[in-house]
């Protein structure tokens, strides 16, 4: 087939841009993770130390707290998928009045800046000014600063993050539901299938694409969560709510240990790539 000889130049701007601002820093971060910076008499020396940074992480109790927090944040996956599917099934129905308004209220969560999500929940869970805290008090719970209590703070973050992300899962589920042909339900009804049977035999299997997309995207969202924690844990060393994505930032800005921060970034990236490996492979096959 004829190929224009000048067409290859079209690749260059994109490759130069990605090369300088993405590929080069990614490679450099990996390299930095094998080095350490030592300051003597005002001079900064960079010294190769092999795997020492990784061993340091392994022996760092704060790293393990961050790791555990990252795992807890994965609770967002079942929560956001379950609630999103519930909203999608409800708001997909034809007999809901004002469907557009309700859908927008739920789905718009995905475009709200995560920083604002954090502030919204700062207010909602405040012991005095917070509506959710007030409702819990009406149910008999004592007023409690859920966000600053080390026992509850990480779960408060899970709730806030789920709240924001349900917009995405609902949108994806509704788009998928609308693509299911109505005839399937009509013929199933003729065969005498009830709503539960229809859901299990038609809806659920045909929702497979959106279930996969939501599962992978929510997992990546949970692992990369940063902004909401930045807001909800502000003003105190917030390390009891800090997942890996935040701990790396903390090490970089508050301990100025760039090489260790790079190591943490490599570990985070490895986890993210592992979590999306199967999905990425599928994308390439497309």
């Amino acid at each position, binding site marked *: 087939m*004829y190929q*224009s000889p000048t*067409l*290859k130049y*079209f*690749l260059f*701007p*994109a490759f130069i*841009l*990605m090369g300088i*601002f*993405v*590929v080069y*820093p*990614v490679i*450099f*971060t990996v390299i930095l993770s094998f080095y350490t910076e030592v300051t003597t008499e005002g001079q900064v020396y960079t010294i190769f130390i092999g795997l020492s940074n990784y061993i340091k992480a392994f022996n760092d109790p704060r790293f393990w707290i961050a790791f555990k927090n990252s795992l807890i944040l994965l609770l967002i996956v079942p929560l956001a998928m379950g609630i999103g599917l519930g*909203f999608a099934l*409800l708001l997909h129905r034809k007999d*809901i*009045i*004002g469907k557009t308004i309700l859908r927008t*209220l*739920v789905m*718009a969560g*995905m*475009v*709200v*800046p995560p*920083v604002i999500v954090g*502030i919204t929940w*700062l*207010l*909602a869970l*405040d012991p*005095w000014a917070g*509506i*959710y805290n*007030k409702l819990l008090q009406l149910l008999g719970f004592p007023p409690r600063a859920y966000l600053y209590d080390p026992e509850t703070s990480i779960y408060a973050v899970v709730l806030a993050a789920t*709240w924001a992300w349900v917009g*995405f899962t609902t949108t*994806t589920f509704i*788009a*998928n539901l609308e693509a299911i042909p109505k005839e399937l339900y009509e013929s199933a009804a003729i065969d005498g299938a009830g709503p539960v049977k229809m859901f299990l035999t038609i809806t659920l299997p045909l929702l497979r694409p959106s279930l996969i*997309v939501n599962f992978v995207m929510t997992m990546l969202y949970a692992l*990369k969560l940063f*902004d909401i924690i*930045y*807001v909800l844990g502000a*003003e105190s060393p917030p390390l009891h709510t800090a997942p890996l*994505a935040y701990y790396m930032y903390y090490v970089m800005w508050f301990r100025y240990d760039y090489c260790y921060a*790079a190591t943490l*970034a*490599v570990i985070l*990236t490895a986890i*993210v*790539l592992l979590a999306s490996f199967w999905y*990425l492979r599928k*994308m*390439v096959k497309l």
Partner: protein
Amino acid sequence: MKVSTIILNIVAWALVLFWALPFIGLIASSFQTFESVTKGWWTFSSLTLNNYIYVVTKGFLRHIGNSVVITIGSVIIPLIVAGMAAYAFSRLSFKLKTMLFLVIVALQVIPQQMVLVPLLKLMRLTHLYNTIIGIILVHSAFATPWILFFLKNFVDVIPRDYEDAAKVDGSSDIDVFFRIILPLMAPALGSVAAIQAIWAWNDLLFAITFLMPENWPSTAAVTTFVSRYNPNWGALTSASLLSILVPITLYICLQKYYVRGLSGGLKA
């Protein structure tokens, strides 16, 4: 109307409104005094615009302006750059193509943290640190992999007949791209622009890493009002509402592009 339908409607509205309570609280609090917010915004015991006046006099509109400039730049650059590359990628066959494609796919999921340290050093070295153009370039580069991937899938299904005819007439690649391919890509470009605009507007990590506070976009500047022991609810909520206005408006106007963009991945 059937009883079951009525119950269903009540349940749906109640659930969604309960779900939206934190957000309703954000809006309601922004129009109330500190005292009435601490008593509970649902008491609606005052009505004031002072919070908005306060954040505007603190220079918040400048941060909104920064957000607008950063967002526009971070949408247009990767759209053109990745659009051109997607076209070339789709039409050319060369060695390394599969490998390059693999790298691009993997780059889509890389966390921002993976580039922070070297980029900070690079930005300081090149004097791009604390400049709007610097952060636009970073956003553009970071978005290029997924936009390239998204658009390549779209260009793949555009038939070659148009461009072949144009080439026979002696048009250059640039002509073909801007006159034929780009207009045909319009629906995909709409989805990409809608998603990328929200991403650039909402970002915090790149903004606080590569910019000093005076140049922060609005989402970063809002955080300066956060205070654990002395929350200034008025400033927090009104500044939040000002920074939310653009993404919400974009979302409501371009809703179909979002749904289309997100369901593009549904073929997996």
